[in-house]
């Protein structure tokens, strides 16, 4: 999976710094976006069987494959809980966001 990189936000001070023709660089993020998460998915690696259903179903693309298991990007997870619901072996459960 191609994951957008998180880069430092550039302060725009001149029009010439803006994209000039309607299109611009893609695959770049400058801000984390997880502020509205109330419930947080917690992953139990021992239970995971590597079916990758959570990776396929995550609507925000924050679950990536890591070897046979998975990794959750908490900088962008909104806490929707779809991964918990889809996991057949209970390897993900939602906890209150601290």
């Amino acid at each position, binding site marked *: 999976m191609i994951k957008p990189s998180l880069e430092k936000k550039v302060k725009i001070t001149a*029009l010439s710094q*803006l994209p000039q*023709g*309607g*299109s611009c*660089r*893609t695959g770049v993020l400058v801000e984390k976006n997880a502020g509205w998460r109330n419930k947080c998915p917690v992953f139990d690696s021992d239970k995971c069987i590597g079916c990758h259903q959570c990776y396929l179903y995550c609507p925000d693309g924050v679950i990536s494959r890591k070897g046979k298991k998975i990794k959750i990007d908490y900088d962008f997870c909104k806490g929707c809980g779809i991964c918990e619901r889809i996991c057949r072996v209970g390897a993900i459960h939602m906890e209150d966001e601290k």
Partner: protein
Amino acid sequence: MSETRFISGDEAFAQGIRLARALVISAYPITPQTIVVERLAEMVEEGQLDSRFIHVESEHSAMMAAMGASAVGARTFTATSSQGLLYMAECLSYVSGGRFPIVMMNANRATALPWSIYGDHRDSLSLLDCGWIQIYVEDAQEALDMAVQAYALAEAEEIRLPVMVNLDGFILTHTYEPVDIPDQETIDAFLPGRDTWDRLDPENPVSMAVTVGPELNEEINILHHKASINALDTIKKVDDKYRKITGRGYGGALRTYLTEDADYILISLGSISGLIREEADRLRDEGIRAGAVSIRMMRPFPRDELIRVLKGARAVGVIDKDISFGYEGTVYTNVNSALMQGRSHIPTYDFVGGIGGRDISLADIEECFKDMMSGRPEESVKFIGTEVEDDIG
């Protein structure tokens, strides 16, 4: 070798699009535009034009299909008229804001109600603010030539904006004239295939048609505005190059006639301009210094050039085939704004005519000049060519 054929404005435009090698054509038929897309469909069918012709279910879809095709880097064409233009209005600002250099022919036609298939300029003038470049042509030859030039203008790196080329419905779209059709090699030398750094390409992805919040949205619109202004200069360069290659040119945003020493200047858009020049000639024979200005490009608006051209006039009139109900003709509003910014106090007159296809005669134009010469107090709007008495006050 070029060849001369006796064809209509619609057919001339189709020839221009063939020569420009538009790769994708998406259109929905509407009178009086229909012939241009029929001819292009035939060319594609017969293999004269290597294009994808997309039949769509509406003008809204026509413009969106054109935008999709333009996004993959294709040179793209569509055409419409009147209600069709209004129906695709939502898409026009998407295309201009996204900076997709689509060329569209609009057959100028009255807007309903009352229903009419005949020509006036209310359709395109009501969309002056949609961010497109707007060009108005006078005859079938200029229609062909501007179909080609429009792509050079639209795709110029400093512009990257869609261009709407307007032909007076029926008067231009359906009138047959001898038209010189350049050969393909000549136009290929003038207009190479479209090459752009931004297109939907998985190997080199870009973000297109983006969302921008209040922190930079105004700035992005400033860039759009500046790109549009650039067309005032680029249209002259494009035309110079076209003239060198084909021997035919039109100048820039304005076509002026005998304005250098003119006391009375009448301004117009599109096909009526030739008749105004004829009347100017006739008045000159009587010793009256008359002149004419045809505005070829309404957006961007050639403000500075217009101020310069009108500077020495005693009175300026505008023939508007348009009325912004409750105020005045829109061309008049634009001309007045330019004169105001030029600190000019020349009296101006608004002559509204040709609405819904009403003919504007040489006698009507003579009346306009007479009105300007009489120094009558300027009315907000004077309707010309009406055939019934106004007895309701």
